């Protein structure tokens, strides 16, 4: 189903916000919308957005590629995006991330075998003073988890696994 068929009202509302000569700016909210159901932007949605905004698919893809918020592949149900930028690293985020990998048994960029969590390392999330920190991105939205320890994180992962199973 195309984006327009799936979310006719939303697409219209988004497009109405931008004057025609700046319509390419609608790419951000449209991508966010396109990602709503599946957790990633499909190739056909990319094409649809490109056509609607008079830009090329490559331009759309490069925006998806730039922002860690957008994805072009189906991966885990939850994306655990750990900030490992310099300020966070100074508070031990890099060590935290390495240990987390060990506990989850996956490397950065990989997904747990049950498909629950994809672990990612991202740039500053504006919570530098509360590192180690990460955000969980899921179909329900974005949630911050700050001043984290490995134990608390693993508890959270267990909880996510359970809710994931219930959700199915």
């Amino acid at each position, binding site marked *: 189903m195309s984006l327009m068929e799936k979310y006719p009202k939303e697409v219209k509302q988004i497009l109405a916000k931008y004057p025609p000569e700046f319509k390419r700016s609608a790419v951000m909210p449209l991508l966010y919308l396109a990602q709503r159901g599946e957790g990633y932007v499909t190739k056909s949605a990319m094409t649809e957005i490109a056509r609607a905004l008079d830009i*090329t698919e*490559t331009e759309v893809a*490069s925006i998806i*590629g*730039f922002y860690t918020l957008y994805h072009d592949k189906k991966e885990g149900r939850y994306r655990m995006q750990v900030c490992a930028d310099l300020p966070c690293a100074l508070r031990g985020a890099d060590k935290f991330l390495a240990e987390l990998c060990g506990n989850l048994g996956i490397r950065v960029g990989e997904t747990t075998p049950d498909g629950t969590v994809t672990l990612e390392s991202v*740039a500053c999330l504006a919570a530098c003073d509360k590192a180690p920190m990460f955000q969980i991105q899921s179909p329900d939205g974005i949630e911050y988890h700050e001043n984290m320890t490995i134990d608390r994180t693993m508890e959270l992962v267990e909880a996510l696994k359970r809710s994931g199973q219930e959700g199915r």
Partner: protein
Amino acid sequence: MADVTLTIDNKQVTVPAGTLVVDAAKRAGLDVPVFCYHPKLEPAGMCRMCLVEIGRPMLDRATGKPVLDEAGEAKIQFMPKLETACTNPVSEGMVVKTQLTSEKARAGQKGTVEFLLTSHPLDCPVCDKGGECALQDLTMAHGPGQSRFLFDEKQRLAKQLPLGELIWLDRERCIQCARCIRFQDDIAGESVLGFEERGRMMQIVSMSEPGFDSIFSGNTTDICPVGALTTSDFRFGARPWELNAAPSICAQCPVGCNLTFNTRREAKADGQIVIKRVMPRQNEQVNEIWMCDKGRFAYHYVESEKRLTRPLMRRDGKLAKVSWKAALDLAAEKLSEHKKNSVTLVSGRLSNEDLYNLNIFAGKTEAILYTDMGGGDLTSLVGVSDGTNIGDMGKGDAILVIASDLYNEAPIWWLRIKAAAERGATLIVAGGRAAKLDRFATFTIRYAYGDEIKTIEDLGGKSKIAEAFRKAENALIFYGSDGLGLAGSTSLAAACANLLKETNHIGRRNNGLVGVWPRVNDQGAWEMGFRPTADLAEALKGKAVYIVGADPAGDDPALAKALKSAKFVVVQDISMTATAELADVILPAQPHTERAGTFTSGERRVQRFYPVVPAFGESRPDFSITAQLARQMGIILEGSSLPIVFDFIAHSLPAFDGLNYDRLAEVTEQWPMVGRGDMYYGGTTYENKDGLGAHLSSAAQRGETFKLPAAKNVKPLRPKEGELLAVPVTQLYDLGNTVASAELLAQRIGAAAISLHPETAGKLGAADGETVKISWNGSQSEVRVRTDEGLAAGVALVPRSFGIALREPMTLTVKPAKKVK
């Protein structure tokens, strides 16, 4: 613009205001190293290689006057940090210290190289760019000998990623300068490259279908400062330092791009010299430093297996190899025997010198130019004048493009006219269908095919568009044969010539008429006196025919039929063609890559090309063959010296007056400077050392009086119920003799297909990609349907050189193929 004086490395330099520090230094002969900056692109300041110290005169806040030191000199205040020479424009009194005089700049540049190399594979020994690589050269010149970074932390990525079937990407080598992306966005106007990810992970991607969908893609491999982008044609083909360079002219379209063929001796070819790649050669008035992918990749026909190596003669119905003497004797005998009844048919693939000899050879017998486009006599009268340069046109000027899909017919004109429009020129695009150039047009006129003349006449009337054209300081018209045959294009040329005359846009530089010809030297053929004929089949029937560089039988079964009934057929060509199959005598000729000569571009610029590789087999240059044939028939022609033939041309044709081979080989300084030891600056484009060529004068420029013919009003064809209006159009990549042998392009050439508006196709019960049966003028054929929303209802586009012989607009019926069975 006013000039600004500054000091760079203790040297006083005066340059126009607005010049960037890096270019000011370049003009003064001082090289500041760059990676992301390119003189044809807007500065981006992405790589930090061009770090220099910049100081500006200290100003007194109260008076605004420079503060002076004890010696009475202006006090210079240096910025505390290094600045990028590529983003800072010059200012009066500025003092710049480059790496040549500043330890700080040296350290900054050294640091940049060290950073770039933290994640570079340094696989120079297997990299195509090795030897002409900016990163290699600048590392040697400015980099540290050692790295303080960990080898194990380099990015490891799968190498050899095809961006399409023409261009390959090596992501490890990319230094993220975005030159390729900026070229595609700003110069080519086809945004099919982008970055994904960021920071160290940043990589080039292309999402188009087909991959890297641009006809200018090869240029990115020239300006990529590393070996990240390479062409399928040249990858792993040779090392740059093994290559010899021969200057040439592209023979694929009327633009006449200046090129360099790179060659080397090769074991695979038994030690013969072979062509390894084609590179652009700078001519700022023609192709700047660019070329299109057709010119770069389609050249393989010159080395095709179909090349003729020896003369052939028909014996007992079969073609047999014979000596040159035997072949020439027989051809001369038969052509003399039927002298009163003979025809010489030539094409615009030949050089000026060939055509001059051929025209004298034909003498009073019929001489025909093989083409379906007319008007070359008018471009001789009101063509563009000396000094014309699309690159100079902008605000206040106008360019009208009518009945031509320049993107497909003359790519570099498309590129340069787009740029003129972006500089503010009024661009009027008039066509029977949507075209890629529309996007950049100030005004778009969409007419019904058949209304071309009326469209031009309206432009002579009263309307906003007419006004804009009339009032323009300079105006050019590019007319083509999109949807037109010989009659239509001849009329259109007349209408355009009259419009130019009435609006006083002739006889001056950057004014006049340009024909978008199907072949490289059609204009030259017109200048030499050749003319097309309305009924070619009739003209060939029952005659003794001498065909040079043309394949009528391959293009049109009706012409094949006419040739079969000819008395005697002599074919002179470089390869075996359908026409040659019908010949009684075949004379093997050389393509432009094996000999010297000149071509006249659509802008009527005469340019020299030089031999690139040794002659194939026993083939000879056309002008010599014609002279040898002529001698046997008692006509004396120059057959060995091209400069002498050219002198004859210059003496007999006023348009060529004053020109000679030396004059055409002259070079004046061009900006930007490219292709010297500093390939990091302009890319691997070649410097032009062998001639910029020269414009022919037009009759209008010479102040001659002449009368322009009125445009004949051809009654527009309007199809009846159940019929479609079929119009011939040109596709860049087709199945013509000079393209089809490039295997690399097979995918882009695709299969023969007629294009219909989706609704029209729907009515006929044919969907996109389906096969249908078409019938026209007693012929039938099966082709695929492609749907195109940019077409008018009831129109069928038929691509030329795809095996469907449609030489002028015609009505056509279409039936789904399956129902016919």
